């Protein structure tokens, strides 16, 4: 074989410095943007707009209008943000895991690589959020407008946008973490539905959770996202309309039915009646009471007692022992009316106000309080998710050399 140039291969100068982390971030940021252009990553932007449009069509007459609509709107927008975030990055690391391994052994710093991903995903989430807010406004979702409409910033749309961005970016970092622990894209995509279902079911917003599982919602991004958005929509200040709408929609419904005397007498032995047997139904009647009813002037006998108090139990006994009732046990009594008639008797407006006020009181939730502190607390929690998942993703990818072949 040819002559060997041993001089060249002799000891090289060691301890030479190579490209540092900051410069490497720029290399990988460049790769991300080339990927965005050349590998159709840009498609996530129009997709975000389409998803926002679909959701806007559903929530635009309810969001910021009543309690139920605001909660559904907050849930739907949280779903949109989580969906966008998750699918931005779920494949971004695992699809090039083998390339990362190769580059890592050539001097690539994992922290620089992940740093580039974080910057790129930050910009992607920001663009998606801006598009989503634009679509919501264009499709007339009744978001308060004008200076001073916001709670933290002067504009409500900015407040909502920040919440949406934080939910989206936290989900993005969560997916980046999943992508960094998955060996293949198939593995990551298999894991994804479990995570999405966990986020949506255990959000604690829409689906009532059993007692034991409630603490789990503290570990979901969706929980803090829904809280932030519901707080911004003024959930606690809005009326609850669903119960009144149900009652109102039943105006023509008939209530009541035909009873026999025997059926009514059987009810006298029910536990409900038994419970109130000592309750007084008719208090003591004095001579003065009778004089007042008859329009006779009161005199010195006015204080004298005419009857003692009568209790429920006494009335029940009276009815049960009534000879007339026992003789006519088979007789039918008709007791029927419509909901509309009952509302007329009680006053429709009174009932409406009463129902809306009472149901809103029952649905009031401290965690949806429209205060600056409450919203800031939820934003902070979303920030914690971002930091934790970003750190975990970097940490897990640092172990890439431990991959088994």
């Amino acid at each position, binding site marked *: *074989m*040819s*002559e*060997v*140039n*041993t*001089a*060249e*291969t*002799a*000891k*090289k100068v*060691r*301890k*030479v*410095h*190579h*490209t*540092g982390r900051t*410069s*490497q971030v720029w*290399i990988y940021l*460049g*790769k991300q943007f*080339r*990927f965005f*252009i*050349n*590998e159709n990553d840009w498609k996530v932007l129009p997709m975000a707009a389409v998803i926002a449009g679909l959701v806007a069509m559903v929530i635009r007459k309810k969001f910021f209008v009543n309690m139920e609509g605001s909660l559904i709107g907050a849930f739907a927008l949280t779903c949109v943000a989580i969906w966008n975030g998750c699918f931005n990055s779920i494949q971004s690391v695992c699809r*090039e895991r*083998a*390339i990362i*391994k*190769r*580059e890592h*052994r*050539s*001097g*690539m710093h994992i922290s620089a690589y992940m740093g580039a991903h974080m910057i790129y995903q930050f910009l992607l989430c920001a663009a998606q959020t801006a598009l989503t807010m634009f679509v919501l406004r264009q499709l007339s979702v009744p978001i308060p407008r004008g200076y001073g409409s916001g709670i933290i910033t002067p504009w409500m749309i900015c407040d909502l946008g920040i919440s949406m961005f934080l939910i989206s970016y936290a989900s993005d970092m969560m997916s980046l973490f999943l992508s960094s622990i998955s060996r293949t894209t198939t593995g990551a995509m298999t894991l994804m539905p479990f995570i999405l279902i966990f986020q949506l079911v255990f959000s604690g917003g829409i689906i009532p959770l*059993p007692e*034991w599982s409630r603490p789990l919602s503290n570990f979901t991004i969706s929980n803090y996202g829904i809280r932030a958005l519901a707080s911004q929509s003024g959930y606690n200040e809005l009326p609850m309309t669903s119960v009144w709408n149900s009652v109102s929609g039943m105006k023509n419904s008939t209530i009541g039915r035909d009873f026999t005397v025997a059926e009514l007498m059987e009810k006298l032995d029910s536990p409900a009646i038994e419970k109130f047997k000592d309750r007084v139904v008719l208090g003591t009647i004095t001579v003065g009471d009778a004089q007042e009813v008859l329009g006779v002037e009161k005199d010195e006998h006015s204080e004298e007692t005419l009857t003692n108090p009568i209790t429920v139990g006494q009335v029940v006994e009276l009815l049960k022992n009534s000879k007339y009732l026992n003789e006519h046990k088979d007789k039918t009594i008709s007791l029927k009316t419509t909901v509309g008639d009952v509302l007329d008797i009680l006053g429709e407006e009174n009932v409406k106000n009463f129902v809306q006020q009472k149901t809103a009181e029952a649905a009031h939730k401290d965690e949806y309080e429209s205060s600056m502190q409450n919203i800031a607390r939820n934003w902070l929690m979303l920030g914690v998710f971002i930091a934790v998942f970003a750190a975990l993703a970097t940490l897990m990818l640092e172990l890439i*050399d431990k991959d*088994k*072949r």
Partner: protein
Amino acid sequence: MSVLMVLLNVLSLFFLNVRVDEQWSYLVPSLLTLVGLWGVFRKCGLNPWHVLIPYVRDVRLGEAAGMEKEGRILGFLSVLLSFTNVLGLFITNPDGSESAFVTIATIFIFLLQFVYQARVILALIEVFNRKKAWIILWMLAEWIAAMIWGWFKEYQPLWKASEMKSSAANFFSGTKAEVMDQGLTVNLEERTAREFFKTKYLLRDIHMYIQPGHMVLLLGGSGAGKTTYLNAVNGYEKAKAEVVLNGHNMYKEYKDMMYDIGFVPQQDLMRGSDSVYRTLMDAATLRLPSEFTRAEREARVEEVMEIFGLTPVKDNLVVKLSGGQRKRLSIAMEFLSNPSLFILDEPDSGLDGVMARELFLQLRQIADQGKIIIVITHTPDRVIDLFDDVIVLAKDSNRTGRLAWFGPIDEAKAFFGKDSMEEIVKSVNREEEGGEGRADEFIMKYAEIAAANAGNGKNSVPAGSAAI
């Protein structure tokens, strides 16, 4: 439920995964399965009494099938399943959340167990050289299949688990390669991996010295540990070893040395969305020292593109390149930093004969510049004239990768008594892989030569051709 019945249920669930009170009709098939497996274990040279011990039964079945890791996982899952079943005995409220948890866990473990059992049985079918369709009977009516395989004379395994302990597997050369100021010295004692609570030896007793300027072929059957060996040599997956390149310990100085090693993986691991020029420029930024100016990096990239014939396609996206161009780009990326040690894992995969020869000629030219080049290829004979030495790795009867030869090509042919490299590989491959199954013979023979050389005061192990 009486205390006696609970006790009976616990015992039968643990040993047979059957509840005596509710599933008594399954008891007979479960017992027959054990009887059948007793026969299978005997035929495979295993202690049949182990059939009676849960977990151990599955581990041994895995050994019989040559799937030790899967066997251990299967055993672990069986114990877990027994545990959840026993737990179910003590749950009084079937509508409670505890019951839901146990049910979900049981279903999950059962599915996993099903998958691992299928894997082990499929391997056992290969050991018994039967049709894959047997898996259906094994999974649906295990007792029938076990009884047939265990007690019918026609059903015999191709090899026995007990045969795995041979003298070659425990024979080591006890020598070391001398450390030189130039070239590559490898003294690998062992490379192990933990697999489900057990240490597995991937490589053992590999010692050699490769001179600068040598192009070395790395041969070995599938699973012989070729890639593991290369990863151990370049310091990427550290072994219990001393690897010295040009006087520098690769393991101790890995952070500095990694730029002096070019490793070209089998797959073309590059981003399709980058252009050729961008790929090389980014690689240059990563690999070249930071004192290189942008102009110097660009000049180096231009030079390397010229060497590898990539200049005409410099603006093309990687995804648009042909197989040969991609391979050359992959090698060029590593060549940028002018490494002393160049390792290539099947660089000719996917290339036709002409293109492959051209590629190996380029590698020869690189070696002639004083670099050490180690290449894995599955079609060595068409380019064997370009190589100086050959390393032959083979699996011993413990399935550990061992050195069966290191030295010049012609001597290798004489050592194995073969005319071509492909025949050499065939001679060390196992019989069930279509080989001659002579790995142990050559491992021992080579270790004896190495030991004899050490005794004669020669270079402790046979060195590359130039040294001899």
